[in-house]
Each structure stands twice: as C-alpha cells, then as structure tokens.
C-alpha cells in the first residue's frame, strides 16, 4: 500500500490498512470489533543480552552500550542511573543482616535480569539481559579482561574518564555476540 498517496487518492481506491498481527479475514465484513492485543506487543522483551555498563570507582559512568532492540535511554539519564546504581550497591552492603556483604550481585525483575560484578579497585561492570539468560557472570568477567587489556593498558586512556577505545568496544561486541550465540539467542 502506498501510504504516501493516501491524501490524494479518492476514498474508494484507498488501500485497506490492517494491523500487523490481526488476521485480515476478521476485519473485512466482520461486525464485531475485537481489540488487537497491544499489551502483548509492548511486553515483548528482546532475548539475550540487552546492555553493558561500566562504572568507575566514584560512581561515574564510563561505558554504556545497548546490544538489543531496547528503547534508547537519554545520555544524562544514563549518567543518573549509573550513580543511582552505585549508591544502591553501597547501601545494600551497609544494610546487610550479616557481616561481610560485598553488594548486589544479581537483580531479578519481571522483565529483565541485572548481573553486577565489582572489582577490587571499585570499578563495577553490570549487564542487563532478558530473564534467566545464562552465561552473564562469564560475560562480565570477559568484559573485565577486555577492560584490563584494551583500556587500562592503553596509554592514551585517561583514568576514570569515558571509554573511547575502539578495540575495547569491538571486542565487547564480539563477547556479547558469543554469549548470545552460545545459548541460541
């Protein structure tokens, strides 16, 4: 159907537009109105890994990238979310009912899982993915290794600043793809 011509064609020849998941037979000649199940479409969570975030030891965001078809988050918002996560991680250790808590490792919600790893130097790596995605801990350790190799050993990288190292970004992409492929996503 040529949507661009809708304004100029006479009503009788306008193409009939059907909703994407609506069987065409139901619309034509049917007198009952059935609502399309939009809530089904909106709760579709992309499978596999969604995004990877790296936070420096003061709580500032140094790397954030999405690897699935998820709604993009505004840059300022990502900075805010990173510092919120940094404080939540610290508070969870303070509010522990027993001694020796190191902070949140896993957050499981209805629509996504979040796995976090904190290094001994205070840098946090976390990944969001669809619920019950396997292999996230290994992915985070792989990203940490890549961070050590392509960011820390990069003489032009300024510590605690946003990461702009092409090799790091490329290799993280490969690692995410490998995690998704290993489990059939």
């Amino acid at each position, binding site marked *: 159907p040529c949507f661009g011509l809708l304004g100029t064609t006479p009503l009788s020849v306008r193409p009939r537009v059907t909703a994407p998941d609506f069987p065409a037979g139901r619309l034509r000649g049917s007198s009952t109105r059935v609502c399309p199940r939009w*809530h089904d479409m*909106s*709760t*579709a*969570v*992309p499978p596999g890994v*969604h995004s990877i975030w790296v936070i420096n030891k003061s709580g500032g965001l140094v790397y954030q990238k999405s690897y*699935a078809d*998820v*709604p993009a*988050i505004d840059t300022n*918002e990502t900075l805010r*979310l990173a510092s*919120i*996560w940094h*404080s*939540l991680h610290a*508070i*969870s*250790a*303070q*509010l*522990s*009912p*027993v*001694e*020796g*808590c*190191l*902070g*949140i*490792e*896993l*957050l*499981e*919600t*209805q*629509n*996504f899982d*979040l796995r976090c790893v904190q290094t001994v130097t205070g840098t946090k790596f976390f990944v*969001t993915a*669809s619920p019950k995605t396997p292999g996230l801990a290994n992915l985070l350790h792989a990203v940490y290794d890549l961070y050590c190799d392509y960011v820390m050993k990069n003489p032009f990288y300024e510590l605690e600043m946003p990461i702009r190292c092409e090799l790091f970004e490329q290799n993280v992409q490969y690692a995410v793809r490998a995690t998704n492929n290993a489990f059939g996503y």
Partner: protein
Amino acid sequence: RVGGRSALMKAYTFRVFNKTGVCLFNHAWPGTAHTSLDDDTRKMLFGSLFSLKQFIGKMTPFLDQSGDGTGAATLGGYYSFRTNNYKTHVHSTPTGLLFLLTTEPGVGNLQDVIRKLQLSFVDVTAKNPAAGGPDELPSEVSCAALTKSVAAAIEAASAETR
C-alpha cells in the same frame, strides 16, 4: 539453622512498609545483625527501595505504558536482589505497601511465599474490624499472630523447597 543443607531455609527479616515509609511490621529471626530498625536505618532502607523501584522502571527494556516511570515494577509487583550473603525479596502492592523478606542467598523464587505473607498481613489489618486501617500499625495481639503465621509460612516454604 540446625544441621546442614537439608535444614530449614534461613530467613533473616520480614518487614512491611506503607507508602510513606512507616514500618508497619518488623520481624527478625535470630542471627540477624540489625534486629530493631532505628530511624536512620529505616529511612535508608525505605529510600533505597524507593530508588531501586524507580531504577527498575527506567531500566525496563520495553516502553512503559503507564507513563509514570514506575509501571514496570508494579506490573508484577515482585522482584528480588541477591548479594553474596543475603537475598531480599520485595513485593509491592498498588496501594503502596512494601513487603520485604530477607533470606539466605541460595533460595529461589519466593513470590508465592511473600504473597501468602501479604494475605496474612491483610487478614490482620484490612480485614480486622478492630484495627485502625490498612496503613496503620497493627496491635500487639495481631503482631504476635502475624509473627506466628510468618514463621509457619517460612517453615512450609523450606519444607517444599528441600
């Protein structure tokens, strides 16, 4: 905890907060570090849970239909987070009540358990004609009854999962 892995699932605390952060019910099992909730800890706990709920709403990977930024967390109302030595299960209701259960880190999904605890809480507060209202502190007697039902629910849950 008695014996090894085959023993009771270890729970630390069960707390209920209303939407303004008042702690309506606080039960701590032995072995917990902070059994009573002093004001600063209460505010820190409630504030962090509030921020966590907003965080989940913003990080959720689909477009939030309700538009208030917290729709995702109230869709199912249950989420849990785990650290290396404890796991907290959170259930929130549309009226703003927050049910928190802290257990050992090895447990799985306790959504049913926490729902049962919510129902016993509701029995004692909203359904009790002598109580002030669902948002107020339950009386001493009902606290004792609630404690018993909470302990029983946790025992039942560990009997199921073991």
